[in-house]
């Protein structure tokens, strides 16, 4: 288990691999969305996953969380192959995620949204609920404690009883993180958490991601378009292009990698029109 520490010092940057993608390919008809991608997410690190639009970043997330089965290759979590595990079972294993387009339960309150996450490990069945068994009462109490604590961590405690859809955009993004964290994951996958944020909000988010790792001891995998944010917060960065990994390493090295520069700015052979508007390296 990751140790928790409140110091600004990274805890275990060189931990063992928590999640490994081993030569993962996935094919949709004629399209190879992922082509032999391999990388590790090490315990206790913040790994940034970047790449131009359509490079396969979200597909990567979907393979890790059981939405897609890889055509070939293997995903291992804490040494164990994910195999054909159901999506909810993978969540219980310790991988939680947020979504690129916010997908909250809009007509439920913020607290209820987080409670659903906390319920991931609960076992209350119909009989328990009907007779209000000790298990039901214990799980309800624990669930609410977890939920309120996580919401407090994300500064949402005062919004607990609001409907999720009535929260502001920034709050909704944080509520998604709260809901994911309530499932008590070891690995938290954030899919473009800064989309639509202004610079001040981005700075806050950077701070939050660091605190999630340093204070909560979670390993973080981050998909993000904003280079400043990714480079500023990640310990390591992996770069995808057209479903292939083209670089991996420390932010400084990746930034200067010719292949990465080519992917974002286009090589001389390419037309200048390839320029990706969000690839502001």
């Amino acid at each position: 288990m990751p140790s928790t520490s409140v110091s600004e010092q990274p805890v275990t940057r060189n931990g063992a691999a928590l999640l490994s993608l081993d030569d993962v390919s996935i094919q949709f008809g004629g399209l190879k969305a992922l082509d032999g991608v391999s990388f590790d997410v090490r315990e206790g690190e913040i790994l940034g996953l970047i790449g131009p639009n359509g490079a396969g970043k979200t597909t990567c997330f979907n393979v890790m969380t059981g939405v897609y089965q890889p055509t070939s290759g293997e995903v291992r979590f804490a040494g164990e192959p994910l195999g054909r595990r159901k999506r909810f079972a993978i969540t219980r294993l310790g991988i939680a995620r947020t979504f690129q387009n916010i997908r909250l339960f809009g007509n439920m309150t913020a607290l209820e949204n987080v409670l659903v996450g906390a319920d991931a490990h609960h076992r209350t069945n119909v009989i328990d609920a009907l007779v209000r068994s000790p298990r039901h009462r214990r799980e309800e109490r624990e669930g609410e404690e977890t939920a309120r604590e996580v919401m407090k961590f994300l500064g949402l405690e005062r919004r607990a009883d609001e409907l999720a859809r009535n929260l502001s955009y920034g709050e909704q993004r944080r509520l998604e993180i709260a809901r994911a964290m309530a499932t008590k994951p070891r690995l938290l996958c954030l899919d473009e958490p800064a989309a639509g944020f202004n610079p001040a909000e981005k700075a806050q988010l950077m701070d939050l991601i660091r605190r999630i790792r340093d204070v909560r001891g979670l390993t973080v995998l981050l998909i993000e378009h904003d280079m400043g944010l990714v480079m500023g917060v990640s310990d390591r960065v992996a770069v995808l292009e057209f479903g292939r990994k083209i670089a991996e390493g420390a932010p400084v090295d990746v930034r200067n990698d010719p292949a990465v520069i080519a992917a974002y700015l286009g090589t001389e052979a390419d037309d200048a029109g390839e320029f990706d508007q969000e690839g502001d390296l």
Partner: protein
Amino acid sequence: MTEGKASPDTEPASARSMAWGPRLGWDRGALARRVTALPRPVKWALIGLVVVLLYALPLLEIPIVSTPDTDFGGVLFTVASYVLVALGLNIVLGYAGLLDLGYVGFYAIGAYTVAVLGSLQAQLSWWLLIPLAVVLTTISGILLGAPTLRVRGDYLAIVTLGFGEIIRLTALNTEWLGAAKGITGVPRPPSVELFEVPHLKWEGATAVVDLDDTTRFLFFGVADQTPYYWLTLTVIFLVLGADRMLRLSRIGRGWEATREDEDAAELMGVPTFKFKLLAFACGAFIGGLSGALFASRQGFINPESFLLLLSILFVAAVVVGGAGNRWGVILGAVVVAYLPERFRGFEEWRLLVFGLALLLLANFRPQGLIPPRRAKRAQAVDEQLEALEEGTARA
């Protein structure tokens, strides 16, 4: 969407408490809030009063409310069956968000279990028949759900629509199930005749006890149907309690999350397939129970009793009242079942009026008469905010 609370759902509380005008109705929050604010003993006394009133309803023979053309006890039984069905369908449609257009199939299985095993093929005791009917219906719900709950939305609606028709057509074409001529002599609940309860008779504004018009307490006969109403009402209270317990638990939350966003729910650790199946099973359980009660009151059933129209009416009851809110669907069921009975005199106009009412409803209250609680607590927060704003305004 931007920062701030400018979305249409966050109208200020002040506007909401004046909602008398354009919203075609009353301030639904106000009543609920006033009741919740009452001290506990008063609240319980109030609830007790309502319960007693509901049980006494067929005896009071209240003018206007009471049906002049038909036995009021019988009408109340019909209304109560609809309420029971609506509560069951509400779990499937309101909580889990699964559009089931063949709910009448479960109703039919419950009814046929009682009729076939109680009269046509065997003479089991009523006390055995009811649990048997419920168990068989629940199993059929699981059998229907296991393959079909993998499809979503419109596809599920079509499949369930087919299920309802298949059940009816099977009954129609199977001699063992009575075929078209139906089944007579369905066992009635065993009577425990204790005493007679007199009805009231109204002379203008004064009521007198009418000793000639009595209901034999818990005599389940043919003419006086009040005891069936009492029985169904009791079942409704039990179902309401169970509904509340499930709703306020991991299961209820799982259902709602599944309804809101199935994929997100699954990725947050909700075994959505299992939960949808559970919703189907619970719905089938209640539907079957209602059908069994219907058959044992009717004494006679045939495939004509389980037409597709009934499924549509059930869905209408839930949607009219407000899918997802148990009080809403109760009201919806009362509207759908009671009004046509009350105005039997205008029989030819019934469907026209019904269609018109649905159109109006869809326009003015698309969420149903009493929409789901959609944040009673959020409303409380709004009020706090309002109070704060007023405080600062005055300062």
